[in-house]
């Protein structure tokens, strides 16, 4: 028993790690002994979290978000136009649609397939833990890292904005912050699903990039074309918006800003019956469904 674990540890972390792996593994087996599924889940998640923090993923993600947001906020200070939160948040929201999904997919695409290639997954599957919980735990651990990185990264920029503009209107920024966390989690979930389905890491990477291009660029272009070509019903337009998580994100953030973002945006949202509740629900569904599918697909995966 001890022997097997030792081998597994060596495979997954070639560098010295302060002996934490054996400790967690001990905990893992303890958890399986007690047979409580959520403890197994939490242990996998915690391991994933610690690996990401130690592997500098957490710091790198935070730095990317902070640099992006700070760059844009300092830039917007020099631009022509009424200064203030609304304008800055509108600009941030528009550009975050490109960055956040890309970063989340990059962080998520190797969650399963990458772990398999370096052998860590074999070790985990050998344990008496339900495979589905391993995938969900992996997703959960990475989700905590990504969410924290988003909050800290954009939070730093938020601090600068507070310093520049004062407290009034900060709620708009926090809406943006929370929506960004949601958007990141959606694409992390999609990344994990892709990772579960892909045969090889390079396949996962390619598919992830296609997913990014689809949701960020193609989907809305297609939607715009459809709306231009046909007189679609309000329901169809709403469905088209909800079918794209970046669209939901934009609707949440720009809708909260009112008409400041663009002509009639809020009005159109209101007419199509997309309340904040519906939008948030759709975003949560976009997070839960891919992970559920991944948890289901992992059972059919051959190692």
């Amino acid at each position, binding site marked *: 028993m001890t022997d097997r674990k030792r081998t597994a540890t060596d495979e997954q972390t070639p560098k010295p790690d302060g002996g934490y792996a054996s400790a967690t593994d001990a905990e893992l087996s303890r958890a399986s002994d007690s047979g409580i599924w959520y403890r197994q889940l939490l242990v996998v998640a915690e391991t994933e979290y610690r690996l990401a923090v130690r592997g500098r993923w957490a710091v790198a993600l935070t730095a990317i978000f902070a640099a992006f947001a700070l760059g844009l906020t300092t830039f917007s200070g020099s631009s022509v136009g009424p200064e203030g939160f*609304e304008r800055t948040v509108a600009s941030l929201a528009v550009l975050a649609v490109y960055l956040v999904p890309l970063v989340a997919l990059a962080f998520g695409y190797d969650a399963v397939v990458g772990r398999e290639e370096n052998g860590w997954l074999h070790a985990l599957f050998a344990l008496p833990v339900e495979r589905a919980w391993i995938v969900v735990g992996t997703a959960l651990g990475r989700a905590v890292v990504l*969410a924290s990185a988003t909050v800290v990264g954009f939070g730093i920029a938020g601090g600068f904005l507070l310093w520049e503009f004062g407290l009034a209107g900060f709620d708009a920024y926090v809406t943006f912050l929370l929506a960004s966390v949601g958007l990141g989690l959606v694409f992390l979930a999609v990344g994990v699903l892709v990772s579960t389905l892909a045969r090889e890491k390079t396949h996962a990477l390619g598919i992830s990039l296609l997913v990014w291009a689809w949701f960020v660029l193609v989907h809305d272009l297609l939607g715009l074309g459809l709306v231009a070509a046909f007189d679609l019903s309000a329901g169809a337009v709403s469905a088209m918006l909800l079918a794209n998580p970046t669209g939901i994100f934009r609707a949440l953030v720009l809708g909260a800003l009112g008409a400041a973002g*663009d002509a009639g945006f809020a009005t159109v949202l209101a007419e199509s019956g997309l309340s904040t509740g519906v939008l948030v629900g759709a975003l949560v569904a976009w997070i839960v469904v891919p992970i559920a599918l991944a948890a289901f697909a992992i059972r059919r995966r051959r190692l």
Partner: protein
Amino acid sequence: MTDRAGVDRETWFVVAAVAVLVVSLAAAAVAASDGSDDREATVEGWTPDVADPHDAEPPAEPGVATVDGEEFDSVQAAVDAAEPGDTVVLEGQFEEHVTVETADLALEAAGEGALIDGGGEGTVVHVAAENVTLEELWIRESGHDRGNEDAGVLVNGSGSTLADVRITDTTYGVWIGEAEDVTVESATIVGREEVSQSERGNGIHLDRADGAELRDNEITTVRDGIYFSWSEGVDATGNVMWDLRYGVHYMYSDDNRLEGNVAFDNDVGFALMVSQNLTIVDNVAVNNDGPSGQGILVKDVDRSEIRDNAVVANGNGFYVYNAHGNELTDNLILENEVGVQFTAGSSDELVVGNSFVANDQSAYAPTTAQITWNDSERGNYWSDARAIDLDGDGTSETRHQPAGAVEAVVHDRPQAAVFAESPAFDAVRMAESSFPVIESPGVVDHRPLAEPAHDEWREYYEDHDN
């Protein structure tokens, strides 16, 4: 032991995130409960300084009219007794209708002021002779009949002057009919608020009143502030008009000049219709957002110069309808729903040097062709354009298409606005703007300015107390 240490070593990250999140949420809660709208950096509520037009005390004493040392208790009697060149001094309250048939007469108020009350019937003061002057009088309560042209003052005498008069509760304020070179200055005209707008008359109504001068008047709660019909060579400067249908309304009136006027909170600020050769400079139209909602309406107007005006926070900044050969130059177009709307085959316009700042939509033109507004070296400033000025000559090297395919789609099918600001939206817009290969119909500016020519737009954001 190692286990605990490991936990400590990595938890800082999530702890930091939770701390930032809690602080942010707390700050947001405070900001939201603050309820202050400072972030609403809009010009909503911007109003120029106007005194309360209702702020005046009528004189209580019965009226006394003095001419040549002789006292009368009726204005009409005094006016009838006066010789040309005399001054009739009025003090106190009169209840009568007056017709002035003696030329070169002056009617002035003294002491506590003078009020002529028409008792709600007919026209109160009728100036039927030339070169008559009315000064500092308060005239009120004309009849209610629009068809009968019931007015506070009806001027038929050329060369007459109304100065510092106050005209309240009238159908028409001042009606100038078939008289030349009449001057109205510093008058305050307040219509009947309780009468519906379509039943009201105009503030100053010009009917074949060539060469009139209208200066520094304040006009509110009538139908149209200043109405022109068949009048030429009229100078209107420094007037302020609010809570009206149209601030200024031109019909069939050529060769007129409108300068430095302010129109706010009307349906339409300045409505220029069926006229030519107008000069419209330095006017300000703010918050004109009624059912039509236009800052400056240019309808069937030809060869006019519209320069240095500011149109702010209107429905349409400019609405140009079947107008030809006009020059729209150096105007500030700020925060309107649509900056400039061109329609009904308007052609040959020169649109140069304008600053389009923070409009929901800068320009819109339903057309199947590509319209170029500027053949000149300079274009307009567009706050939403990607201006790239490499050689530092102040104009961008890339063209800008403010009204292109996506704007047309959104205008025709508002549903498409849900894709507004999406990367797809931006991609189409950027392609249109940057690559002349893609020739989609709409308005195009070949030489957009890199910097706005107007700095004073910031003033509109300064005062929010009103």
